[in-house]
């Protein structure tokens, strides 16, 4: 079949440029860039600096380095730049520089990585300086024109005024002159208390096209002459393709190519994705399943259980003599908890489009880290970085899946390399997405608590056994067998992921056990299970000591004022200590991670049939500075859906070396009928910048689990909850 026969799109290259710009609303997407010389020549507006472009009509384009995946970072970062720029918010649009442009300009836009809730917390200072420097240059350009000192000029909403002479001028009128000035050396920033754009509950900039179907996701992206690919990788991790019979499907409708991808996968390339998938499903493939074909969830659990008592373990946090405290305790409480594999299950499955020639390799993909996507494209193509480019497309969900590992980018490039000159779009089926995730790690935890005769906690040993994400993805960061990220929320006092309790004798250690299932950073990362382990066990200790769970915690938190303040804020808003409605029970917890302090109180009931209803969750968060309270509320609600979906249903089961759950019918998630009311208390205390997208996910599950105990007397220690019968015994 000829190329022309599958060019069902009526789009020319020009109309792609226009169409994608239109589809992206005011955004100019990276994928316009292959034709950028033309585009830039036509619409050339010089930038004031790397962060700010101002058009003659006063339209302000703010460049955003981080990826937008629903979390609102695009709007929040634009607010920070616009705040310092003193422009008219109504005239603000945004665009993404490409990873290739960033490299070519000495990484002027800094890090593109969008994970770990760090979009705002790590780049706030330099993006604000970008906005402030641009403002200073605009003012200087106006002052130069008027021949007055810049200090005599003021700015509001993109209009510069010289009061003494009664003159004013718009940003659009001076931007070209400003762009020729030297950037200032000293760029003071506003005191956050003076903010008028940042800190306000503004609406997102990117909503309209999401309500009309116009927004172009990676799955929707098209190039002229593009073919479509479906892929099947060996379902047993680490296995390989033994053989496949392409002749069986070569005459099926639309099929163009049947291609090996690496040594473990086969792709079918066809005129449409439906044809590709249909043919792939009919393709006979024999797998060499390799050495892991007998691994099961049970065998993994047995291995991890052994780690709970293993002599060797890496220490994460230690003080006093925990062995002595346990030996001398009036009472010792010991319990084992576990947390299963989870799939990110982004609504948009993994996908990318690639165009390879001997001279150049380009990739268009939803990614949390454009630079990592570019690096993956370069490596897979064998071309130098300078001959490759990656164009970011807004993500249909990321949650960590589209950040550190770009396996789908490597695949699409491996396919494109076999059909040079022909663009190809690879879309995973949902089944492929479920089988080949980068899974939330599997761990178990044995907790041993020592109480004195008055019910005070004198010692705590937390032994975590299980998988290390860092060992799986960045093994070079493992030092002396120790993965520092394993201890999120359990670290010694400090600015990141520190434990909120002072226990006289404490030992938190990790026996690393890495199954063959590839781990990944999954929204909330290790804070998820660590908060469940610690906060549910603290609850157990409080009940064992006959004390109120809030009071028991407070007694351990005197030296942790930020943790305590947030816990108190949640407790107060929820009415902790007051009578709950008939049949409704409360649970409470707190933790700290991704730079922010968070706490929650959940209210649940459990009926005679064991059916759980989560009525309400009150969440409190101290992210230091709240750049957009309305979007923080949405992130808190959303994090609860993600965290509670995992707690209620989430479990990827290993059988015969592969995952069992292949779609949402067996991997259920929370839907609207189970959604509790969420009340968010934002208590920014200033002086630091914490994250928003992830921290609160970690308090949803322990608050609910502690409330379930209050309601039923049943302590759920193994997730997901669906495996526990909550009926009263």
């Amino acid at each position, binding site marked *: 079949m000829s190329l022309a026969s599958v060019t069902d799109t009526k789009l020319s290259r020009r109309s792609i440029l226009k169409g994608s710009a239109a589809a992206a609303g005011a955004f100019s997407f990276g994928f316009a860039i292959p034709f950028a010389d033309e585009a830039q020549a036509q619409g050339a507006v010089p930038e004031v600096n790397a962060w700010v472009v101002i058009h003659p009509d006063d339209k302000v384009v703010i460049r955003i380095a981080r990826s937008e995946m629903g*979390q609102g970072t695009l709007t929040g970062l634009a607010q920070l730049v616009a705040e310092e720029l003193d422009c008219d918010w109504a005239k603000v649009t945004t665009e993404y520089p490409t990873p290739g442009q960033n490299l070519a300009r000495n990484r002027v836009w800094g890090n593109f990585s969008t994970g770990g809730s760090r979009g705002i917390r790590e780049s706030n200072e330099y993006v604000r300086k970008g906005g402030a420097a641009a403002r200073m240059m605009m003012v200087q350009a106006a002052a130069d024109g008027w021949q007055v000192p810049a200090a005599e000029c003021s700015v509001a909403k993109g209009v510069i005024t010289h009061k003494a002479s009664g003159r004013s001028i718009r940003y659009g009128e001076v931007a070209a002159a400003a762009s020729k000035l030297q950037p200032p050396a000293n760029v003071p920033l506003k005191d956050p208390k003076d903010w008028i754009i940042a800190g306000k509950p503004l609406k997102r900039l990117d909503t309209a096209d999401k309500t009309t179907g116009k927004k172009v996701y990676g799955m929707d992206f098209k190039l002229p002459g593009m073919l479509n690919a479906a892929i099947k990788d060996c379902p047993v991790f680490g296995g390989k393709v033994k053989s496949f019979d392409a002749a069986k499907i070569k005459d099926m409708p639309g099929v163009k190519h049947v291609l090996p991808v690496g040594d473990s996968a086969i792709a079918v390339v066809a005129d449409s994705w439906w044809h590709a998938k249909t043919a792939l499903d009919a393709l006979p493939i024999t797998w060499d399943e390799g050495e892991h074909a007998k691994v099961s969830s049970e065998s993994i659990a047995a291995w991890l259980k052994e780690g709970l008592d293993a002599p060797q373990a890496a220490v994460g946090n230690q003080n006093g003599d925990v062995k002595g405290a346990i030996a001398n305790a009036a009472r010792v409480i010991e319990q084992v908890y576990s947390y299963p594999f989870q799939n990110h299950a982004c609504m*948009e499955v993994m996908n990318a489009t690639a165009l390879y020639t001997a001279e150049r390799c380009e990739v268009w993909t939803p990614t949390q880290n454009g630079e990592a996507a570019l690096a993956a494209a370069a490596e897979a193509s064998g071309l130098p970085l300078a001959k490759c480019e990656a164009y970011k497309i807004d993500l249909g969900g990321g949650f960590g899946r589209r950040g550190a590992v770009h396996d789908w980018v490597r695949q699409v490039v491996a396919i494109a390399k076999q059909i040079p000159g022909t663009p190809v779009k690879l879309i995973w089926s949902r089944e492929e997405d479920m089988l080949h995730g980068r899974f939330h790690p599997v761990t178990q935890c044995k907790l041993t608590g020592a109480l004195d005769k008055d019910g005070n906690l004198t010692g705590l040993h937390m032994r975590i056994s299980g998988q290390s994400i860092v060992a799986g993805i960045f093994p070079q960061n493992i030092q002396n067998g120790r993965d520092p990220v394993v201890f999120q929320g359990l670290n010694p006092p400090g600015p990141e992921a520190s434990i909120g309790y002072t226990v006289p004798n404490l030992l938190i250690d990790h026996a690393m056990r890495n199954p063959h299932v590839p781990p990944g950073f999954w929204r909330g990362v290790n804070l998820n299970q660590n908060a469940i382990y610690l906060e549910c066990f603290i609850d157990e200790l409080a009940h064992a000591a006959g004390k109120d769970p809030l009071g028991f915690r407070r007694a351990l938190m005197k030296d942790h004022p930020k943790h305590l303040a947030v816990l108190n804020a949640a407790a107060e808003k929820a009415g902790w200590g007051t009578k709950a409605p008939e049949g409704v029970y409360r649970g409470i917890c707190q933790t700290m991670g991704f730079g922010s302090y968070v706490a929650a109180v959940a209210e649940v009931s459990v009926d005679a049939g064991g059916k759980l209803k989560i009525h309400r969750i009150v969440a409190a968060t101290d992210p230091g500075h709240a750049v957009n309270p309305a979007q923080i509320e*949405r992130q808190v609600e959303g994090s609860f859906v993600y965290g509670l979906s995992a707690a209620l249903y989430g479990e990827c089961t290993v059988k015969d070396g592969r995952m069992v759950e292949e779609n949402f019918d067996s991997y259920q998630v929370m*839907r609207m009928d189970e959604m509790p009311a969420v009340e968010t208390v934002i208590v920014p205390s200033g002086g630091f910048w914490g994250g928003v997208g992830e921290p609160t996910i970690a308090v949803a599950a322990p608050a609910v689990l502690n409330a379930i105990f209050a309601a039923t007397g049943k302590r759920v220690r193994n997730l997901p909850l669906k495996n526990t019968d909550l009926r009263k015994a």
Partner: protein
Amino acid sequence: MAKLSINGKTIDVAVEDDTPLLWVIREQIGLTGTKYGCGVAQCGACTVHIDGVATRSCTMPVSALTAEQKIVTIEGLSPDGNHPIQKAWIEHDVPQCGFCQSGMIMAAAALLQANPKPSDADIAAEMTNICRCGTYNRVKAAIKDVAAGGQLGRG
């Protein structure tokens, strides 16, 4: 071959009989607002209206449809994105990543057309679409807002 009525136009498409409506809409017609999420009618990202009824197009073979059945996709819901549900979505800043929202909006529009004053239980029963970002409470608030405005319905 199939003859379909999509967004008010009658269109001939050359596809195998068992091709799901979703992929006809996306790949033959070229309307990509309707999304693939699961392919097994679980998630609702592919929701379209067929004669006003919210239908998951990923499991609907094109051969099951006739040219008389009126199919409406998100692109055909309103001429300018000004359907009351779309306006409420913007007012409530509902979408996060937005990928599921075409399906959510189509499900919500069909719900209110059939049941202009839904109870919370009605909304929970009818709105079974999956959103991994967790916009459920905003979706619900937007639906209730439109219901309170009384702009939709057959009654």
